[in-house]
């Protein structure tokens, strides 16, 4: 047997949609998290209820990981298709498990030096419970192969099936136990990848970007959410809808994304913190609402979880192709703020910060994630979500005392040096009833078309963008300052870029990462300075047209030295970035 590798491996669980791969994978992730391992659990699925290959790829480590990684060491295949599709991903010495009713051609497996056995998972499931529990058998088998103590799997089984009754819990436990024993006996001694609980590891949470965003929004005072279901944003809305009523979050499943965005505006107009969450196609429908919010200076927050486009595109897959769209969507010119958290922790902060920015600058704020960040599970230390770090800043919203000080003639859109006008809320004070028109308007909000009035109101609105730019953060640098290559990225690509840079540096190379989180208004001077310090810049983006590279060039005049692009709907793996460097397309469209 090869030398044993402990707590550093990747597992894939794959099968058809409708075989419960998602919940099995998530349950698997949780059991490892409870054992003190760092987990990165990426889901990959088709846009269908039944059929089509789905899988969960889980990276396990004693260090925090920000990305999945190849190769894969253990394959839990619920279908032969899974073996065929993932064969090339498998490491030498990897193992696989397949239910007994399938047969596989051993030749390609032998050629790659991997072992895939059929195990009587279905028979065991039927013997102790029923056929549906074949997943449980597969998980038990995986634990057995890696000699991972079954108790962690058992605790998750208890939690997950508690709602279905004790009998279901018990039979699942029996199925898991039987499969565990069989698999350990069959593979245990020969399989070099082992998982053991980490002594003294702190308790951790297993969370995805959507959940962190939703918690951030909640902590930021968001109590109104209107949305229309759209993958991969749906779970933000669902999570907030499922909160106990004491939290007081009013959620509204709207008739369409137009209404969803408008409802967020309506709630924000009267002073609540309202938001909506959507993906590309839904965001298309929200464009007119963005213009309205900007024109009438209503704080509005949109969580935009990107997916593959255009049109219905790749509904369940990842892409970063809406950056320039999000910045520019809507006719006319108006202020807005666009941010893009890169990690789950950053999602939490982005969730509450968006509301402060929106209220401070009285404009729309778009928080961009993507399918990869939105739905990938990652372990976080308990204090990574720090509610005491949250502040609620309502900007120039008038306090009751300030309202009492108003005389008649309150001007909702008063010209100020910053462009930010004191904001009264409808219904709060007799002296502060006001009009807000989506047509161009005067300081009191009434229709206006005169030349000078238009010029001044336009300048007032756009001054807010200049003000906001001062608050926008410069890109974050990770890794050695003097690196030979700088991977320039935004949003979720940070994870694979960081892992790639680590890999390069560990191998004696020299790379760092420049991660953009605040994308609009892009702070020009600090951005130019950060780019100028780099020796060789390569943008790494999940899109075809290198949208960040274009934005950087548009804003600073600086052209990056190369671009790496991926637009197949699958997130970059760090190995792909490492392999791609040197072969990247230089400052142009990808091939």
């Amino acid at each position: 047997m090869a030398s044993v590798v402990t707590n550093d491996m990747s597992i894939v669980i794959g099968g058809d949609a409708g075989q419960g791969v998602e919940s099995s994978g998530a349950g698997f992730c949780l059991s490892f998290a409870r054992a003190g391992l760092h987990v990165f659990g990426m889901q990959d699925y088709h846009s269908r209820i039944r059929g089509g290959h789905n899988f969960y790829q889980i990276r396990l480590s004693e260090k925090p990981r920000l990305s999945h990684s190849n190769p894969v060491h253990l394959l839990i295949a619920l279908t032969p298709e899974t073996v065929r599709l993932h064969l090339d991903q498998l490491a030498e010495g990897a193992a696989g498990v397949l239910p007994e009713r399938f047969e596989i051609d051993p030749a390609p497996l032998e050629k790659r030096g991997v072992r895939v056995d059929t195990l009587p998972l279905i028979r065991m499931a039927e013997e102790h419970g029923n056929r549906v529990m074949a997943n449980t058998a597969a998980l038990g088998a995986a634990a057995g192969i890696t000699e991972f103590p079954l108790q962690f799997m058992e605790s998750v089984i208890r939690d997950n099936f508690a709602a279905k009754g004790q009998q279901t819990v018990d039979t699942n436990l029996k199925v898991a136990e039987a499969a565990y024993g069989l698999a350990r006996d069959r593979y245990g001694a020969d399989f070099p990848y082992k998982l053991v609980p980490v002594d003294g590891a702190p308790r951790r949470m297993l969370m995805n970007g959507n959940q962190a965003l939703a918690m951030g929004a909640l902590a930021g005072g968001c109590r109104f959410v209107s949305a229309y279901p759209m993958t991969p944003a749906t779970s933000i809305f669902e999570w907030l809808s499922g909160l106990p009523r004491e939290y007081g979050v009013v959620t509204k499943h709207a008739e369409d994304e137009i209404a969803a965005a408008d409802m967020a505006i309506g709630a924000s107009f009267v002073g609540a913190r309202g938001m909506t969450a959507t993906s590309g196609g839904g965001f298309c429908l929200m464009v007119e609402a963005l213009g309205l919010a900007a024109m009438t200076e209503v704080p509005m927050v949109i969580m935009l979880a990107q997916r593959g486009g255009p049109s219905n595109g790749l509904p369940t897959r990842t892409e970063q192709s809406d950056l320039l769209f999000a910045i520019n969507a809507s006719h006319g010119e108006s202020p807005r703020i666009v941010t893009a958290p890169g990690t789950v922790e950053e999602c939490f902060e982005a969730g509450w910060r968006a509301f402060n920015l929106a209220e401070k600058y009285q404009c729309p704020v778009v928080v961009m994630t993507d399918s990869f960040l939105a739905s990938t599970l990652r372990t976080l230390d308990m204090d990574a979500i720090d509610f005491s770090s949250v502040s609620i800043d309502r900007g120039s919203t008038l306090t009751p005392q300030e309202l009492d000080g108003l005389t008649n003639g309150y001007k909702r859109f008063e010209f100020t040096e910053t462009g930010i006008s004191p904001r009264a809320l409808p219904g709060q004070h007799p002296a502060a009833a006001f009009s807000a028109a989506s047509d161009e308007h005067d300081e009191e909000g009434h229709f206006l078309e005169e030349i000078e009035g238009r010029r001044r109101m336009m300048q007032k609105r756009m001054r807010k963008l200049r003000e906001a730019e001062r608050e926008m953060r410069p890109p974050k640098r990770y890794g050695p300052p003097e690196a030979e290559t700088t991977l320039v990225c935004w949003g979720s690509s940070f994870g694979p870029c960081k892992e790639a840079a680590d890999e390069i540096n560990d191998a004696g190379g020299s790379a760092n990462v420049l991660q953009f989180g605040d994308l609009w208004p892009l702070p020009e001077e600090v951005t130019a300075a950060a780019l100028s310090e780099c020796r060789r810049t390569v943008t790494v983006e999940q899109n075809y047209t290198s949208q960040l590279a274009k934005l950087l060039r548009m804003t600073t005049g600086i052209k990056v030295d190369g671009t790496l692009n991926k637009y197949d709907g699958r997130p970059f793996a760090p190995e792909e970035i490492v392999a791609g460097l040197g072969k990247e397309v230089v400052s142009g469209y990808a091939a």
Partner: protein
Amino acid sequence: MVTRLDPKLFDATTDITWCAGCGDFAILKALKLALADLGIEPYQALVVSGIGCGSKLPDYMNVNAYLTNHGRPLPIATAAKLANPDLHVIVTNGDGDSYGIGGNHFVQSCRRNPNLTHIVENNQIYGLTKGQYSPTSDKGFVTTTSPDGAIELAFNPLSVALGAGATFISRAFAGEPKHMAGLIAQGIQHRGYALIDVLQPCVTFNRTNTYDWYRKRVYHLEDEDYDPSDRKAAWEKAHEWEERIPLGVLYRVEGAPAYEDQVKALEGGSPLSRLDDLVKDPRPQQYERLKERFT
């Protein structure tokens, strides 16, 4: 007891840009009177509109006014009411805005039953774009976009509202502002979605459906032996048009809960009041137990 206010409280100093004789003047007057009669002060009301001649109405009043996108005032108003249920929220928009581009929002609002008053300035024409046929234009109506006459059947807001489950369906005529004010006041007092479809002549572009045309046809349901709780009767009345056109409350359901009455999350306070509380005390510990869900 409600203290009646002077409708002049709602007068604004803005220039009104409607054509002389426009039926919207009567709607503006009736709305001011209804609010004043109910003792609602300008700052306690929010009037939300879309785009079009009629949608300019809120800008011509001293009130909280939100003039929004074409077709969109209903979802905006719905959320405003959910976020601050203390506001009296009224929607005023035209037939194109309500029944055309905003048609889905209209249908959804009927079945949703938010506590809103929806006044539709229905002149059967697009006025602000200078004379194109609208969803409520009668079949055969000749305009610049229907030179051979409108081919579609006219949209019937009352029967659609009835079919979609609206709990207060009424029709007014701009030629009778006092009667209209009464209907608007009833609509505001109705708990739930109240539709007041106002037949409102466009004196410039609709030379068919004039004051005279309506006058010859309209009659008051309250003058007849009519029971507005009778759904079948309402269905019949909703389809009267060619010869006689009923005014008044066609259909009313008493005691049905409004949408916001059924939102559990509103029980302990509105999204607005809860935010006010959070500003004073962010209570981070309140959220701590949520983390347990992820372990």
